[in-house]
């Protein structure tokens, strides 16, 4: 049985200007121990999807899904109490900016211990301390005993991100969602953190969702990849084959516009013209149609479905039915 299964997930917000649906009709499956990369530009709904999985969406959001299950538990019908038992325990999350996601007025040791107090109440004080040292050791924080009693401002960004990872690993989660875990960090530190995440994944056998806007980060670190555009998944597949032979025009555009994609020195980079659609005025039919270079008239009429891992009428050849 799949660890996480999401089927036709849509998220709607009621705003003053009317309802908007920043995430619609998303389906995916993660098996135990698998790593999944999610790429997309800002506003494509990748973070909202994660928040929905963790049950952290604000009250004005409505989540609709045919199925959303974690290891057999139906996430849609969980009560707050039941959420508490899963969130931070079997499923945990690390965020983009470690400086703002840690509480500045408590020591990092105290903040991690909180997780243990909540989810591992059978441990006594001594055992908790032992587990804390173990965790710091695992995420590679030197001199753990001293570091535990420090405050977030006394540490560097990379160290704070290690603290966040230690916190999320405190209860040996089965699924770790890392939402842009290295965007706020320098490249050499990014490299360290990504390596650490992969090592931990191998050691513990947890599943990993790595969300990022940087194709380079997922290219080397995940086995499966899904590309999102305007709240929809437009293409999914094996990371390497998707990167080397993209099929959806958006994926192709995204990869081609990357400066590190073997373009001759100072040659004009191919770019995707236009802008992401305004969610209040979504285009009819295919969301990418206004920016697409291979679009035909029919793309405007019919919303493409996910067929054979791609959401594009032209690529999947499903235009035939119209003629």
């Amino acid at each position: 049985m799949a660890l996480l299964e999401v089927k036709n997930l849509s998220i709607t917000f009621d705003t003053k200007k009317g309802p908007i649906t920043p995430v619609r009709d998303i389906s995916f499956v993660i098996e135990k121990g698998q790593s999944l990369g999610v790429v997309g530009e800002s506003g494509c709904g990748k973070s909202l999807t994660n928040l929905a999985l963790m049950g952290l969406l604000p009250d004005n959001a409505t989540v609709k899904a045919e199925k959303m299950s974690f290891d057999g538990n139906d996430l849609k019908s969980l009560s707050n109490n039941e959420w508490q038992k899963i969130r931070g325990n079997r499923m945990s999350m690390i965020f983009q900016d470690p400086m703002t996601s840690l509480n500045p007025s408590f020591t990092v040791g105290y903040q991690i211990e909180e997780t243990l107090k909540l989810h591992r109440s059978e441990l006594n004080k001594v055992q908790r301390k032992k587990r804390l040292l173990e965790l710091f050791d695992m995420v590679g924080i030197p001199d753990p005993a001293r570091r535990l009693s420090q405050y977030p401002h006394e540490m560097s960004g990379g160290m704070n991100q290690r603290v966040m990872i230690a916190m999320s690993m405190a209860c040996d989660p089965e699924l770790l969602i890392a939402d842009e875990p290295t965007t706020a960090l320098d490249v050499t530190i990014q490299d360290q953190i990504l390596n650490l995440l992969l090592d931990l994944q191998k050691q513990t056998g947890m599943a990993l969702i790595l969300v990022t806007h940087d194709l380079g980060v997922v290219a080397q670190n995940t086995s499966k990849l899904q590309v999102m555009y305007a709240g929809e998944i437009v293409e999914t597949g094996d990371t390497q084959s998707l990167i080397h032979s993209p099929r959806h025009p958006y994926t192709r555009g995204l990869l081609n516009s990357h400066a590190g994609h073997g373009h001759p020195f100072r040659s004009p980079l191919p770019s995707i013209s236009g802008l992401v659609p305004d969610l209040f005025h979504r285009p009819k039919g295919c969301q990418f149609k206004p920016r697409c270079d291979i679009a035909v008239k029919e793309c405007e009429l019919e919303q493409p479905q996910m067929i054979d891992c791609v959401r594009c009428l032209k690529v999947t050849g499903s235009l035939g039915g119209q003629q």
Partner: protein
Amino acid sequence: MIEIVDLGKHYQLKSLFGKAGTVKALDGVSFKLEKGRALGIVGESGCGKSTLAKTLLGLEKRTFGDILIDGKSIDELKPQDRHKTIQMVFQDPYSSLNPRKKCWQLIAEPLLINTKLKTNEIREKVDSVMALVGLRPEHAERYPHMMSGGQRQRIGIARALVLDPKVLILDEPVSALDVSIQAQVLNLLIKLQDELKLTYLFISHDLSVVNHLCDQIAVMYLGKVVEMGPRKQIFEEAVHPYTKALLTSCPSLDPKTQHTPLKGELPSPLNPPEGCAFHKRCPIAVDQCHKTRPELKKVHGRFTACHEVH
């Protein structure tokens, strides 16, 4: 031509009990840059790239060293002429534009401050610069919040260009933008440089962007240049261990090649290690690196500061 000779910027930290220490944000940086060329400056946060930009621009007073423009010290220029020579494009187009001003007002501001042009001349100049950077006439009356990130960065570029500067400092001009928009802005920057014969100082942490655009590369570490030379030399045959580490840790689209990440972090600039600033993280450090600081020397067609490179 712009030449920088032994430029330094030290900050004195004061505490209640007198002097607390010195931060050597920029410590003896020298380079020459020919007209129409682009120099890429790479390095991690805290390496002094932004301090370099600010010192060049005159936003920070330099502690020692000199900046020469066409052989003349920049001190000989009047502030207004300095602003007409060097301009800067900032990183974040969301926070560097005044939200209460319209697009054309934002672009006209440098003209109002530094020139004595009449209103209609200013309007004309603004219109021509807007066309140059690819903003349409109807954008003139819009406020920044009504525009997309890419368009805002175009405003940032337009207001830097409106005084017809010779040198443009670009401080991470695309890192706040989405990938598909980045390409548009990079294309624009290349086009502008070719058309206007601008000299670029391109500061970025994204090596692939620098590799696409700059003829010369300088790698900085803790206020000093550790390796500097032509693009090909740096990207294909880097010799300094820090440059090598930077290149391998940069995420690429190809399958993973096995490498061990660089250990440790940037040391505190308040208390830099003795000898080579990099020796604590360096995989090839020897005894000498703990004691003496390596000088920049010419090796294999580029400058590098490392004892172990001959």
